[in-house]
């Protein structure tokens, strides 16, 4: 199919408003545009089979008739009567209306560029494709009439075959899930010509897109072509005349290993070095032994040299007293002595953290008993007898103890005490790194990330349901039951011979990982998975769930707070999927360039939380026809002059702190000749110092706060390092913001969208709409009330049973308008910032909002613009 037919079809459907109209509603939700485009793309995928002599041997003209039939097959769904019916507001009406088809078909032929085919007899063939694609419309009478209508046709003598192909394409694309899709393909006219294959998996998280991509690549490499993508898999096709085989699980696993290894090779240093007051080595599995120097140097940056000195006098006094007590020095504390020791401890704090990391790096768990012994020997050779047990007796950062047990040993080395702090750190890193490297060379298996990728992919492969490994379902179920029955006493304890049941993925396991706050929120809090008595440390999770969370952090560089998930609205074609993936990538790359202010414009930034500015930009725009640039514009905001003044001031302050008020040090580092801080700040803001790129991003806080796992259209993930909310938002207000952002993305990118926290499970099953409502009871109750009040009375009992977890297409538009209008009214209504959106959307009547505006505005009457916004909010006031 030439691209221009697809383009022409898209333009025609946009003109007819098919993106606003429901094509599929019950069970899954698609606009008429998506549903039709999916079939057109399916036809394209199957074109080689259709044209092949050994299969359908369709002529080029017949192919064009098929394309016209597919594009027009659901034209009857565009009528208001059918739309009312599908949204539950009207009685059933058929969408195959011969008169309607006949009236509109010439326009379709014209728009698709098939004017040369628009003769009476050709039109009858296409009409038959449209009118007979529903089973209920096929009866002896209608078939006989159809045959009569084309009996003298010169266009083709295969009108019935063409009608069956259109019918089959519709059935395959309308199938609710992979199994139904495969079944439709097997039952269709294609079954004798097209061999069907599929991959299917359970959704875990960011590992899922990688697994999808690995499976997709494995199938395509063997000669399969993808037909339809679903959230949890893909249906593939291949000519029955060919001899293609499906890929093996090993093939898919190897591809997955390569992908994970690629991700693991980036941005790990900051993740390896943890928090000195909690766990300095939270992810030992990410360590690559050759990188020990980077880690030690990174550890030195985990605490500032001035942090202790800037503490309150009483706090410093307490620490200094403890230090002197440990040293056995009488405690006669003059003010001068206190300052002197405070300074010394403060200056040494980064060194303490380096020692702490070194201790973790040389632990038995990482280098084994032999390595541990070697490290002890080398360490004591350098720092003197007794220094190794002293190091081992330290724990989290405790300045007095660390000073005694590590720093004093180091400072007593010849010449060290006379060095400045930076030189000391450099020397310490060098010395400890040489010990570490000596130990790593000596041990058989030094820590390496290479094995991690293989371990991860082996673990994630359990999510691949098909291609399947032969397994005994009954024994699997019995094992699951046995582990579930035995797991309660072990849920919060790491013991040998335990049987665990993962609280995240519900899989049984024998050896997992203790959940740390680093990757699971509140791991020590009560859970019904554990017994209510006895000791409970931290909940145990399986290694795969831990690896999944490690992978998330690797992708973002830190733990994501929330994730924006983009799913196909039930299914998507490879062509549309590829366009979606490219579009998201393009938007993401441009967003990164704005965040990092590469063009020197620091007034612009990206937001998913500022509902008001986003709503202002979205107002009056047709979201369905936006380019990538325009979508990006919706989430871009510009800071005001006052904010920019503050930023300039903050930049100067940050630079002064960083270079300790020494402009010469800055000039040395940047190789510049600035005479004052103002000049340096201005140059930094306008991106004129290429060498200061990292400093610039750090000072301007322009570190990218969202990532993109955009591999295949099955599931696209945008992890965010911040929650979608503004400063004082209550959970309810924040949920409304998320709903708005989700709807904005869903409508402008034609996807289903859910926003989940890092701890929430992905809504894998039952995607019953286009926008997921955040799990906040007040918001879900509001959605339900509005849904019921907008429905017809006969529909209400059914709606009362339906979950309000997902919004369908017209509801997404409704709430986008209403929340957007509410956000634009927050200034005028002056409700408390924590709940302003919710207060407006639950006002007793439009009059109450108006009254609020007019009583808050200092006797100023509401403006026409306020009425326009209230009218939009009014749609959801019940």
């Amino acid at each position, binding site marked *: 199919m030439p691209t221009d037919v697809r383009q022409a079809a898209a333009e025609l459907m946009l003109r007819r408003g098919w993106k606003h109209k429901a094509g599929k509603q019950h069970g899954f939700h698609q606009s008429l545009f998506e549903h039709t485009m999916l079939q057109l793309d399916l036809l394209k995928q199957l074109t080689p089979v259709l044209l092949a002599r050994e299969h359908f041997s369709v002529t080029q003209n017949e192919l064009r008739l098929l394309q016209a039939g597919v594009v027009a097959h659901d034209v009857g769904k565009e009528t208001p009567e059918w739309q009312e019916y599908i949204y539950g507001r009207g009685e059933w009406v058929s969408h195959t209306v011969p008169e309607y088809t006949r009236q509109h078909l010439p326009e379709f032929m014209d728009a698709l560029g098939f004017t040369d085919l628009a003769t009476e007899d050709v039109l009858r063939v296409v009409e038959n494709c449209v009118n007979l694609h529903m089973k209920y419309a096929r009866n002896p009478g209608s078939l006989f009439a159809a045959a009569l209508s084309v009996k003298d046709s010169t266009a083709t003598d295969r009108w019935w075959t063409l009608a069956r192909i259109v019918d089959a394409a519709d059935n395959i694309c309308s199938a609710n899930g992979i199994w139904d899709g495969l079944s439709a393909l097997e039952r269709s006219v294609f079954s004798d010509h097209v061999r069907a294959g599929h991959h299917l998996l359970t959704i875990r998280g960011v590992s899922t897109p990688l697994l999808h991509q690995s499976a997709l690549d494995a199938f395509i490499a063997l000669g399969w072509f993808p037909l339809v993508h679903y959230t949890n898999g893909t249906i593939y096709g291949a000519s029955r005349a060919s001899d293609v085989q499906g890929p093996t699980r090993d093939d898919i696993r190897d591809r997955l290993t390569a992908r994970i290894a690629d991700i693991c090779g980036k941005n790990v240093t900051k993740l390896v070095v943890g928090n000195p007051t909690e766990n300095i080595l939270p992810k030992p599995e990410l360590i690559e032994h050759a990188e020990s120097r980077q880690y030690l140097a990174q550890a030195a940056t985990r605490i500032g040299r001035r942090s202790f000195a800037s503490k309150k006098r009483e706090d410093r006094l307490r620490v200094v007293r403890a230090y002197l007590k440990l040293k056995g020095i009488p405690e006669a504390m003059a003010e001068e002595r206190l300052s002197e020791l405070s300074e010394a401890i403060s200056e040494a704090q980064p060194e303490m953290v380096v020692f702490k990391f070194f201790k973790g790096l040389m632990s038995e768990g990482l280098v084994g008993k032999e390595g541990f012994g070697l490290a002890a020997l080398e360490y004591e050779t350098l720092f003197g007898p007794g220094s190794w047990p002293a190091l081992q007796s330290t724990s989290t950062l405790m300045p007095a103890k660390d000073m005694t047990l590590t720093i004093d040993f180091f400072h007593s080395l010849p010449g060290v005490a006379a060095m400045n702090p930076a030189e000391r750190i450099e020397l310490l890193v060098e010395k400890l790194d040489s010990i570490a490297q000596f130990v790593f060379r000596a041990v058989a298996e030094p820590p390496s990330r290479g094995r991690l990728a293989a371990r991860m992919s082996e673990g994630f492969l359990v999510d691949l349901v098909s291609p399947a490994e032969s397994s005994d379902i009954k024994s699997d179920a019995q094992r699951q039951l046995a582990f579930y029955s035995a797991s309660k006493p072990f849920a919060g304890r790491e013991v040998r011979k335990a049987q665990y049941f993962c609280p995240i993925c519900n899989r049984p396991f024998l050896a997992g990982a203790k959940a740390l706050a680093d990757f699971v929120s509140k791991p020590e809090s009560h859970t019904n998975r554990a017994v209510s008595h006895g000791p409970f440390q931290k909940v145990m999770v399986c290694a795969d769930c831990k690896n999944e969370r490690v992978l998330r952090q690797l992708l973002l560089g830190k733990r994501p707070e929330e994730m924006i998930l983009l799913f196909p609205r039930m299914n998507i074609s490879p062509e549309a999927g590829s366009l979606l993936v490219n579009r998201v990538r393009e938007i993401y790359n441009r967003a990164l360039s704005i965040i990092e202010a590469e063009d020197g414009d620091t007034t612009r930034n990206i937001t998913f939380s500022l509902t008001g500015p986003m709503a202002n930009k979205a107002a009056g725009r047709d979201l369905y026809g936006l380019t990538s640039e325009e979508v990006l514009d919706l989430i871009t905001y510009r800071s005001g002059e006052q904010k920019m003044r503050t930023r300039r001031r903050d930049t100067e302050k940050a630079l002064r702190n960083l270079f300790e008020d020494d402009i010469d040090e800055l000039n040395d580092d940047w190789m510049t000749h600035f005479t004052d801080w103002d000049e340096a700040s201005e140059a930094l803001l306008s991106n004129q110092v290429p060498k200061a790129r990292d400093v610039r991003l750090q000072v301007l806080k322009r570190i990218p706060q969202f990532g993109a796992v955009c591999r295949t259209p099955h599931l696209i993930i945008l992890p965010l390092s911040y929650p979608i909310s503004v400063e004082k938002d209550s959970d309810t207000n924040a949920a409304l913001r998320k709903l708005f952002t989700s709807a904005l993305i869903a409508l402008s990118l034609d996807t289903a969208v859910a926003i989940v926290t890092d701890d929430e499970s992905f809504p894998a099953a039952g995607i019953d709409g286009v926008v997921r409502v955040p799990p906040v009871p007040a918001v879900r109750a509001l959605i339900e009330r509005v849904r019921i*009040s907008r429905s017809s009375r006969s529909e209400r009992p059914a709606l009362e049973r339906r979950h309000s977890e997902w919004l369908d297409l017209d509801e997404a538009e409704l709430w986008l308008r209403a929340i957007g209008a509410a956000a634009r009214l927050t200034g005028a209504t002056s409700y408390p910032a924590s709940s302003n959106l919710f207060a407006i959307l639950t006002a*007793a*009547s*439009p*009059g*109450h909002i*108006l*009254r609020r505006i*007019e009583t808050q*505005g200092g*006797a*100023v*009457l*509401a*403006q*026409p613009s306020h*009425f326009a916004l*209230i009218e939009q909010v009014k749609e959801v006031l*019940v």
Partner: protein
Amino acid sequence: MRGFIAVNPKPFSLDECRDDIALIVQTFGRYLDGYPTKTSRSKHGLLGPVGKIIQGVKSRKWQAQSLIGYALNIHTANRRTRGFISPESSAALAEGVERLMALYDTVPPAFRERLLDQVDYGLYYLQRKKSSDWLEKRNVSFRKFVRERYPTVDAALQAWGDKPGIAASFDELRFSAAELAKAKGKKREDLEAFRQHFAEAAGEEIEEEQEG
């Protein structure tokens, strides 16, 4: 022993009366269209006698006919009515009162306060919106009027002796009675001409419309 007394209370929602409430609001709105408000700056002024009617219904001390009589008395006491009420307004007033009292009696006591609230604020919104729409319509008409007389907005401002730049385009021009009162020279001439023009076109009299 006496058997259990089974009750099956039907949950009530004001949503069920949505259409009735809307009809009452529209009916009172029709009445107020013929009532010359003293001021639209206050809710009290905007609702005129209907505010008193709502209070009367809430007190449950009035019969429908006596409440209508009370409201008519308030109506005719307004000097701007010159003691007159049109048959349409009178009918709308009576219909509104009767419908409201009838609905009030059918609603469970716990919901009556909210019912009156809905009517009260519904009517307030309706009347304010009508007023806002009317002002906007007048502004649109004013802009067209000025555009026909001057080639550019700057030319208009210059002719009126206004500071250049106070309006960047014709779309930023607004007519107000206050502006007319303090206008002089050519500007007064133009504003007065527009006032006459608009009154004739709309078939009504411009009085003291207030704006935000």
